[in-house]
């Protein structure tokens, strides 16, 4: 295994033990808050304290029967799915293009394409607020979808680009030499091979939109409030257990996304392993 298990000196053993102890504490720090919030959503009381007075599903009931929360969930799904689709089209095309494009301007273009990730959310939001208000795109679904697409596309470009890097271009050439049209070659040869990359790109894009709140804060009208936006005002006003129910729902979505991503990664590794 690793040479940490054949520790030679006592001081090395102490250092290794310290690493394990500190790391364990950090893991607890990372995971405990997320775990701590979950049981509270099943509390029968209205205070966010332990011990729980009893178990009930009343806060989930509250969530499901609240038009405000359900509307926000619906909005998150609509905006998330729409911006995922749009960013997949734009991002995949760009990744395919960037993989073949050779120019000294390429790093510059790449930096530009990736910049929405780095620029602080408030700056993008303020810019969009000024820019979209006069053309009627604030307080509209379209405006939010466009803005979220801009934030999500870099992740698609990165993930699809990474897949293309390990893609053997000879396969495309082989398809062409066998008489396949470029479109046919893309559909039957390239697409199946880069599909895992596309899927993880889509997951990243969806997660980006599903979790985004700063732009929604600036741009959404009362009609377009998303789940994080509803949570934001909920936390500001006063945290009720309904928010913890919303948090559990959001976290469940994250776990599903993460598990899917991990599954894709494993599948990819298996495929790589079998081809070698």
């Amino acid at each position, binding site marked *: 295994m690793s040479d940490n298990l054949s520790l030679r000196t006592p001081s090395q053993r102490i250092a290794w033990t310290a690493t394990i102890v500190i790391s364990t504490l950090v893991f607890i720090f990372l995971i405990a808050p997320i775990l701590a919030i979950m049981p509270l959503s099943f509390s029968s009381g209205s205070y966010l304290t332990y011990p729980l007075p009893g178990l009930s599903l009343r806060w989930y009931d509250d969530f499901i029967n609240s038009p405000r929360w359900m509307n926000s969930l619906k909005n998150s799904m609509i905006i998330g799915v729409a911006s995922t689709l749009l960013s997949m089209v734009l991002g995949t095309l760009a990744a395919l293009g960037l993989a073949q494009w050779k120019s000294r301007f390429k790093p510059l273009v790449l930096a530009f394409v990736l910049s929405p990730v780095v620029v602080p959310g408030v700056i993008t939001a303020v810019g969009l607020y000024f820019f979209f208000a006069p053309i009627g795109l604030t307080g509209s679904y379209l405006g939010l979808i466009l803005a979220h697409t801009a934030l999500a596309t870099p992740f698609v470009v990165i993930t699809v680009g990474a897949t293309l890097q390990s893609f053997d271009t000879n396969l495309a050439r082989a398809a062409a030499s066998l008489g396949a049209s470029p479109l046919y070659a893309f559909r039957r040869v390239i697409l199946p091979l880069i599909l895992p990359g596309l899927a993880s790109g889509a997951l990243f894009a969806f997660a980006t939109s599903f979790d985004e709140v700063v732009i929604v804060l600036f741009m959404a009208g009362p009609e377009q409030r998303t789940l994080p936006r509803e949570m934001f005002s909920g936390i500001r006003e006063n*945290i009720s257990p309904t928010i913890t129910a919303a948090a559990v729902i959001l976290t469940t979505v994250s776990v599903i996304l993460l598990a899917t991503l991990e599954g894709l990664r494993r599948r990819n590794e298996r495929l790589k392993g079998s081809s070698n």
Partner: protein
Amino acid sequence: MTAAFLTGADAETKVPLKRRLKQAERARQLKALALVVPLLLFLLFTFAGPIAGMLWRAVDDREVRQVLPQTVAALANWDGKDLPDEKAYAALASDIQAARASGTLAIAAKRLNYALNGFRSILTSTARNLKTVPAPGTAKETLDKINPAWRERTTWTTIKDASGPVTGFYLLAALDLTRNADGAIVAAPPDQAIYRDVFARTFLISLGVTLLCLILGFPVAYLLAALPPGRSNLLMIFVLLPFWTSLLVRTCAWIVLLQSNGVVNDSLRWLGIIDEPLRLIYNRFGVCVAMTHVLLPFMILPLYSSMKAISPAYMRAAASLGAPPLTAFLRIYLPQTLPGIGAGSLLVFILALGYYITPALVGGAADQMISYFIALYTTETANWGLASALGAVLLLATILLALVYGKLVQGQQVTGGMKN
């Protein structure tokens, strides 16, 4: 299309193969570029354009010009040394009356009030008391009588400075600077000078969070890199799950944990460590804890990948050459993790600089970072010039750091490639 057509035409005239290849390659490159163009255009509309618009607003200064056009024109040739001449007073009187009639005076009043506190009341009192157009030659006398402020040179230089069409006023204000009556750049009056503090606070919080992330993240990344893949993949869930969990959920969780009757305070009381609940949230402590929690994965992941690339053979070689473990760690291992430390720290620092949601929810009034003020001036007070100027400064800092980050990561990829 054109490129394809040209290649066909050239092929007929039997151009050398080399040139044809070159042309085919150029066509391929154009096709590749064509695939990128839709995204570039899209980002121009949804990202670059809006940000350029925001930057423009930081220097745009046309409000006074539109409301008081004659005054601006009359002051154009004024040297600012003495009070302006009668013509300027007459122009101002006429402008004020016109603006009052069209209801636009408040726009100019708001802009001038930014530059000189109390200008709003000077303008409104003048407008209220200016019943008729002053007789030729008496404008100065009339205005002086209505409000003594028109006898001050500063009043007039304020109008001249705000004449536009562009101004450095908001950018200077964002750095707590202003122009005095003589046009020299000086420190802003103390009651208006808050932004340097805000920037310093933003940097300090970001730096503190970055250091905390590094201290907490380093041992974790080391452990993950040292363990066999099966086990480290399992432990990686502890890093990836928070990474994928919504920011709002995590901030909410910290409020639940840290509030005065929250889990942490209750446990401490139950253990008998404290009698009174500690104030753990809505202060700097809460902001740092929550932000560290949110940003820690961004530190661990780059550290992990840089540590993963370090061959254990180096440490073995150091040990076999007689280096004590600490020396081997400090002289062999640590230097090789420096690119990872740099990349992770810069990433965390850049992300922390622009943070808005977490401080807004778990911080007190004295913990708000620069983003809060940008949001405040955009949506609450509609001081768009100042919001944009503060945004421009934040953007500049982010871009500079991102350039350094780009260089660092690029270098890392090169060395990573060489090692593999």
